[in-house]
């Protein structure tokens, strides 16, 4: 550069923060750890296994496929890494087995984004 103007510089993304090009990821993957969606949950659905009839409505209606039936202990299980707290499952539960509980009530609950500031 004849006039010694400033350069644009370069950008270095640290290895541990790299994201695939365009965030395009291999599929299908049952649980895509690269794209965890739970950090915005405000209320968590909590299940009462006594009331639960195992009708699987929550499994069917969850938009993020977070409910799963565990055959071994005959219980519904919630994947907390992907539950966004939409509470559709509570709306759809015919047995009233689900209750919304604020995240602040839990040890290690989602009270902030991963790296807030």
């Amino acid at each position, binding site marked *: 550069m004849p006039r010694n103007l400033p350069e644009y510089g*370069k950008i270095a993304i640290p290895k541990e923060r790299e994201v695939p*090009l365009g*965030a395009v990821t291999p599929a*299908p993957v049952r649980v895509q750890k690269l794209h965890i969606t739970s950090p915005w949950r405000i209320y968590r659905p909590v299940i009462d296994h006594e009331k639960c009839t195992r009708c699987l409505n929550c499994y069917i209606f969850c938009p993020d496929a977070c409910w799963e039936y565990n055959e071994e202990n005959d219980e519904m299980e919630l994947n907390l890494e992907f539950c966004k707290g939409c509470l559709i499952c509570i709306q759809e539960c015919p047995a009233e087995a689900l209750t919304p509980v604020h995240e602040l009530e839990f040890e290690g609950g989602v009270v902030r*984004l*991963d790296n807030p500031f």
Partner: protein
Amino acid sequence: MATEKMLTGCAAAAQGAKFAEVEVICSYPIRPYTAIMMELAKMVANGELDAEFVHGEGEHAQLSVVLGASAAGARAYTGSSGVGVAYAFEVYSPMSGGRYPVQMAIADRALDPPGDFGSEHTDAMSTRDQGWLMGWACSPQEVFDNTLMAYRIGEDPRVLLPQMVCQDGYFVSHIPDKVVLPDVSQVKEFLPPYNPPHPLDPRKPYSHGPQIRPDQGAPMDAQRASAFLEVPKVIKEVTEEFNRIFGRNYDPFLEKYKLDDAEIAFFIQGAHANTCRKVVDKLRSSGVKAGMCRLRWVRPWPTHEIAEALAGIKAVGTIETSTSYGGAMRGGNLIHELRATLYDLPDNERPLVTSFMAGLGGETIWPKDFMYMAEVLSNMVKENRTKKYVYWIGLEPEE
């Protein structure tokens, strides 16, 4: 064999898409760009072009359809004008973020309110920070050429970004001019088929457009920004190769017209450069050392090239043709970037800079308007100061 035809800018864009052998086209009518889709629809119906022609429900759908097509690995083409460009806004960032090199033809039209069919660059300029490559043509020939060049640049594996190929509504889009259409073999040599990195394919499945975490946002933004650091190099290479294969003489970033010894210069993009060039000649013949610098690319902004081209000129005026209400200079957009670009020049080489709001709403910028601007610039040189940031052509209070 290369042939010569009289084509409007819209017909030239359609020819460009045909020569590029686009595979998916998504249309929605709004004038003046509609004429591009009318041409392409005919070509598909006549069997001249083998492409899927999808009619979208609106511009948001248009952009979404071509995003999907590009994700599936197709070379995809769409376009719009005015409020249509605005209606598609949500999809611009996902398109560049997902790195889909689709092309969108824009024939500029003023935004509402209320309806105005005239050309104004505010439609496309409003999208300039969404990660798209963006440039303006000033003739049907340049529209055709930019269509091919933009695909080649956007699909380069170092780039992978969508492109807006802009032309002024009416002034370029609807006025026929001589266009040299190349031989197919030239295009084959210049533009290889698109080779998508992760096409949607049931045999090798990929997820496109997933939810990302907040801490992945910055790296993704940086990914796009890094690509933009590579683009100027690619534009240079591709323009050189285009010039070689097609026998043209494009400067990659700027048309520098009689700038070398100029004292005053117009800084411009798009169709009005054609009038401006004539006025520069007229000014020169009357002894005024005038020149013109025409932007071929707005994104990426050719910072160093502009600074080098305008260093030493005494006064420069941007011809805005788009609005930035309440912006730093209270006029258009170009002056903000131009002033920032020239800031680091040494004091004795840094031009005075003002701006002219002209060609808004589709008004013609007449030679007398450029003559008035030249007078303003010459007075700035005489007084060695910038008196006003912005002049509204035809709307200035009498002094």
